[in-house]
């Protein structure tokens, strides 16, 4: 692959989208293509991390209720999202959201005419798309690109003229606490919004995805949450118990027996918290640090999970490690290995999205 700076020089800055599409060259950028060849690019000396951070600060509750519109917040918190990763968007402008709304509406209509199934049950054929910025959904320190919310409305079938349109699909593109070195290493015309969440009919999801791919010359792919990510989520949520009750700590393991066996393991919140504290305390003593200040280390997460698994083994003599962790959930959120999440508590949305942004950045293809 050629260094992206040169390709940028060749592209006239004022070129129209359609013209650019006619060329066969692609300007797709990814985390790894930037970090992969530091010797050639000499841009990103610090970017060698290909793994998830091994330690992170304990999540701080962040009140975003007054920053976001109530309806947007309710949508974020009440919906189960399906996650995808997105490579950096080429020539995406936050100032052009209005024009994107029109373009996407037209694109959906065109796809419909081509016979692509985008019908949503019980609605009329016309779709209205709106793009909006979710200002305020960002971490306090980082200078991340603003989150973009995409909503598709349609009129219910057999409705009266004056009835309001119904929300049939929604999705967002976000970047929270993205690696600052990576973000600054991107060429100027690229915007990095690596995490894409969607909820709604599958037909519409794939149409919106293909529009994003074509318009911003990027790649989208399924973001599966691996074992480590799920464990991190579990630990981060448990760590919040003192401030906001987690109600219960639930894990679902799938064991590879014939027929497959599912083990759902639910722990009392207070006991889970005590176990987590005991794991934290042990390491805090070693490092002689203040408990509140210290970062959470991946070792503590592993030890926490080990404690839970060994308690299980002591009773059932069954190795949970033989299977895989497929779901985790607390009152603050829920996540499954398939890449579906729910962020039930508005106070920790930012923390959860920060971790998922990191996963999405890692998942991007080279």
């Amino acid at each position, binding site marked *: 692959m050629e260094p992206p700076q040169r390709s940028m020089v060749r592209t006239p800055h004022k070129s129209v989208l359609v013209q650019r599409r006619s060329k066969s060259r692609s300007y797709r950028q990814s985390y790894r293509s930037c970090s992969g060849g530091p010797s050639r690019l000499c841009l990103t000396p610090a970017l060698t991390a290909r793994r998830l951070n091994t330690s992170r600060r304990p999540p701080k509750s962040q009140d975003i209720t007054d920053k976001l519109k109530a309806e947007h917040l309710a949508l974020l918190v009440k919906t189960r999202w399906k996650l995808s990763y997105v490579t950096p968007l080429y020539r995406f402008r936050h100032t052009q959201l209005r024009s994107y709304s029109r373009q996407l509406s037209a694109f959906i209509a065109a796809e419909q005419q081509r016979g692509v199934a985008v019908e949503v049950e019980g609605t009329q054929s016309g779709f209205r798309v709106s793009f909006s910025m979710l200002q305020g959904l960002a971490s306090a320190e980082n200078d991340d690109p603003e989150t973009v919310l995409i909503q598709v409305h349609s009129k219910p079938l057999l409705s009266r003229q004056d009835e309001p349109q119904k929300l049939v699909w929604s999705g967002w593109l976000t970047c929270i606490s993205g690696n600052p070195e990576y973000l600054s290493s991107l060429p100027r015309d690229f915007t990095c919004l690596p995490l894409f969440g969607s909820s709604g009919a599958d037909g519409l999801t794939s149409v919106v995805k293909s529009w994003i791919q074509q318009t911003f010359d990027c790649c989208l792919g399924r973001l599966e949450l691996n074992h480590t990510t799920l464990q991190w989520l579990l630990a981060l949520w448990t760590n919040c118990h003192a401030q906001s009750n987690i109600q219960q700590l639930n894990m679902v393991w799938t064991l590879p027996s*014939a027929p*497959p*066996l*599912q*083990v759902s393991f639910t722990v*009392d919140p207070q*006991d889970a918290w005590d*176990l987590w504290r005991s794991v934290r305390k042990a390491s805090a003593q070693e490092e002689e640090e203040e408990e509140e200040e210290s970062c959470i280390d991946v070792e503590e997460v592993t030890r926490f999970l080990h404690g839970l698994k060994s308690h299980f083994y002591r009773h*059932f*003599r069954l190795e949970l490690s033989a299977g895989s962790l497929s779901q985790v959930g607390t009152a603050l959120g829920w996540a499954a290995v398939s890449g579906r999440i729910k962020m039930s508590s508005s106070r920790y949305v930012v923390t959860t999205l920060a971790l998922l942004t990191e996963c999405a950045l890692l998942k991007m293809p080279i």
Partner: protein
Amino acid sequence: MENITRRLLQRVVRRFPSQTLRATLDKWERLSEAQRRSLDLSKTKWALTEKLLSICEVCDTFGVWISGVSRVIYVIDNPNQGMWYAFQLLDPKDDAHSVDLTQFKQQFKCHLSQLMRHVSIKIKKHTDEAVWIRIAWGDALSRPDHLKPTYVVYYLQSSHVFMTSLNSKLKPLLSQALVLSTRHRGMKDANLSGRNLTAITDLLMKRYQQVFPTKYPTPLAEKNEIESHPHIEREQAGAAAKRQQMACEAFGGGVLPQLQSAVYKLETRFKDHTNKIMTEREEPFRCVVKFSSVNLLESLRHCASSGIASTPVTPLLSSVPLKGRNSFVITDNGRSPSSQTQQSQK
């Protein structure tokens, strides 16, 4: 009344899958051969309902009765709908073994209608000694609700009762009527439930292939095999065969009753030699573990024979087939640290 009948019959007919409609109608003894033949099943269900209604008007029988019996038949043929709960009758009286169907029918109806004024009871004996009871409940002000009936299956002269869709408020009434009419002194929850009625009855009555410990699990092989590494192969095969044998001893051999889940409520001390703080904690570590699978017992047997679960199988898991229950509460026996492995099951 006319309207209620019509609505009920429509709902019932709509619920039957078209494939089983003929078989169900054939079992309906009130309809004469000619009447049954006059029904055209290729027509829509709505037309069929109209036809049935007209027949019933001629026969002067009423829809409530119709739906009652036909739905008992339907559930008997499709016993895997809804969740079935097992109960056990306790302390049989001396004459408990001589209760026959007529006596039971009469007594049960009598007792239950004394306890509840508006109640509709249908009793039907199935082929395998099981008595099927359908109860539609009403309250002081309303007629029995035929759309949400409770089904009870009782095996005559046994102590097992199975129920589905029972409201917890009505449970004491029903259990009192059952206890009195079966000549027992009490009834308790057997802590066993599942979607498949046949499976839970098989499990409770031990109608599956059990495997018992033997000294020579397989016929002795003749010693004329020549292998590359005879020692290694023999040892490995031996260990695998042993695991397999132990797994079968714990859960049974062959096809096992289809149980969907088992739930354990654990309230035991947390013990882990690497975690001193938690091990020293006085309070129990509270958690709930639920195992679920299409066929739980076969999954567990596979786990044990493939080594995911260590053998010998822990009594916690083998209690499911052994005691015929799938809901447990586990606590430490004593509060003293000496009770390391002793756990009691409540």
